[in-house]
């Protein structure tokens, strides 16, 4: 799949290279990458792990070794559990619509109205926006008084809604913004999966006299099954890592009701100055991500056999 771009240039050749040709100073090609890799990825992983065992603070002075006490504190911290709960709610509330809606969009664009580029652009453009543009646009949409949504609501005789400062509503608003912002990515993946379905499949269905609904359910949905599995997996992992739009829209409020795990890590580390404790929560979260990824791979492998 990753080599789909290849055939236009050169036919794929799977022939093994003779050892003789491969000999040489190939290592030097890898060195620049390895240096950066070691400095900015491996080393932070190691030093973060060490930091999580200390009481390191942002203000610098005196990092003493404290063993596993940060981890013990994290597991007993109700704010950690609340942020985990919020993250789970966010993940479930975004993942399902982001998968279903992106498929619906791709299918509608695919079955073809004129001007495909226009529809494609409409759905994909938000994905290209930096997070702060997204939040600026939506803060303006949600604005009390003269924001677009509240203006329409009051025009229709309803009460205004505090989209970002009402407990219970704020998480819903963040979910909405996230769907708007990121659906374009899944949409493009689905669209190209649909376009790769061979024509003869449809012609066969046509001859069988299958109606549009039958065709959708019994041909198209199964044909993009692989894409669906990939999108679900990527989407869950991406949703778990939510931070930026929350930080910019509500900073985790009101009363911590939108505080995700990464938002809490940020609060602890950079507002609370407790880098050691923030690192410990980071590593617990990392472990959780790995577990989720492994479980997903297991389920996927079982489905394929």
């Amino acid at each position, binding site marked *: 799949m990753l080599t789909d771009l290849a055939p236009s240039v050169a036919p794929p050749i799977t022939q093994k290279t003779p050892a003789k040709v491969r000999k040489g100073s190939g290592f030097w090609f890898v060195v620049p*990458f390895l240096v950066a890799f070691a400095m900015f990825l491996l080393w932070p992983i190691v030093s973060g792990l060490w930091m999580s065992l200390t009481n390191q603070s942002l203000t610098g002075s005196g990092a003493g070794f404290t063993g596993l006490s940060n981890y013990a504190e994290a597991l007993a911290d109700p704010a950690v559990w609340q942020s985990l709960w919020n993250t789970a709610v966010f993940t479930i509330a975004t993942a399902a619509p982001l998968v279903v809606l992106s498929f619906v969009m791709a299918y509608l664009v695919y079955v073809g109205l004129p001007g495909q580029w*226009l529809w494609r652009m409409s759905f994909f453009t938000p994905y290209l926006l930096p997070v702060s543009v997204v939040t600026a646009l939506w803060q303006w949409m949600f604005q009390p008084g003269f924001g*677009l949504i509240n203006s329409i609501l009051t025009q229709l005789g309803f009460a205004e809604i505090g989209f970002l400062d009402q407990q219970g509503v704020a998480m819903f608003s963040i979910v909405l913004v996230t769907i708007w912002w990121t659906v374009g990515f899944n949409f493009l993946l689905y669209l190209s999966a649909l376009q790769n379905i061979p024509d003869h499949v449809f012609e066969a269905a046509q001859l069988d006299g299958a109606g549009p609904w039958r065709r959708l359910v019994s041909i198209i949905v199964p044909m993009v099954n692989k894409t669906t599995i990939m999108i679900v997996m990527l989407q869950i992992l991406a949703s778990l890592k939510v931070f930026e739009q929350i930080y910019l829209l509500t900073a985790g409020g009101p009363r911590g009701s939108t505080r995700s795990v990464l938002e809490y890590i940020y609060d602890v580390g950079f507002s609370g100055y407790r880098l050691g404790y923030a690192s410990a929560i980071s590593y617990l979260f990392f472990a959780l991500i790995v577990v989720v990824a492994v479980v997903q791979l297991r389920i996927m492998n079982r489905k394929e056999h």
Partner: protein
Amino acid sequence: MRAQNQRTSALTIGTSKAWTGGAITALIVLALMWVIPILWGVATSLKTEKDAAGPALSVPSQGWTLDAYVQVLTQGEIPRWMFNSFFVAVSVTILTVAISALAAYGFSRTEFRGRKWLFALTIASIMVPGQILIVPLFQQMNSMRLTDTFAGIILPQIVAPMMVFIMKNFFETIPQELEEAARIDGAGRMRIFITIIVPLSRPILMAVSIFVFIGAWNNFLWPFIVTNNPDLLTLPVGLATVKNAYGVQYAQSMASAILAALPLMVVFALFQRQIVKGFATSGMGGQ
């Protein structure tokens, strides 16, 4: 495009009018929902501040104007942030593509001790969520005295194991014979890389460059963490943090947002085909 049209007709034959009508309506409604926030931002940016803070659903009493754009471009810091973003994104793209392509070549076409092991380590690191490294990375930048420098913003962004993986897969599809012929002519590895591999890999290098550029241009978290210096702010960071400087000037704040959105929309319009194809084939974006 022609294949698309053929398929379209194959699809619409035999569908009922109600079905087609329903599909068209749904498409239009969804597309409207997706463009309205942007159009509403554009509309606001074209009003005077007084109208922008007035009733949302009426025609602006003072007419449409480009005042807000003139204001932010001449008085605000948008040009400065835009330059910073451009400088950072271009630097990150060049460095990332250069070291990743070299590494991908080394991993795919050469033999050295520990090659397999190092590649496995590179692939495994794709799993690590970058956000959890923010805390130790910030501390490291602090001790290297790189906070509040362009180097501090740029360097941690150039490590892209996923791009190494994508390019390695591509390089492996280039026929070995081409390389062997050049070797017989006495070309060294570096010359082979530059004169044979790079020209044959233009499409993938292009796609990877676009991904990396989009990712770097939009990156918020790292530049936000690593610098407080107002002179070094990138566009996404400046927009989010210096908003208060404008107070409640909605037209100007929308004009800034639209200006920040424009460059990538132009990039997308220019490279739509490569981006769509690249996204589809690699299954990933700039995240």
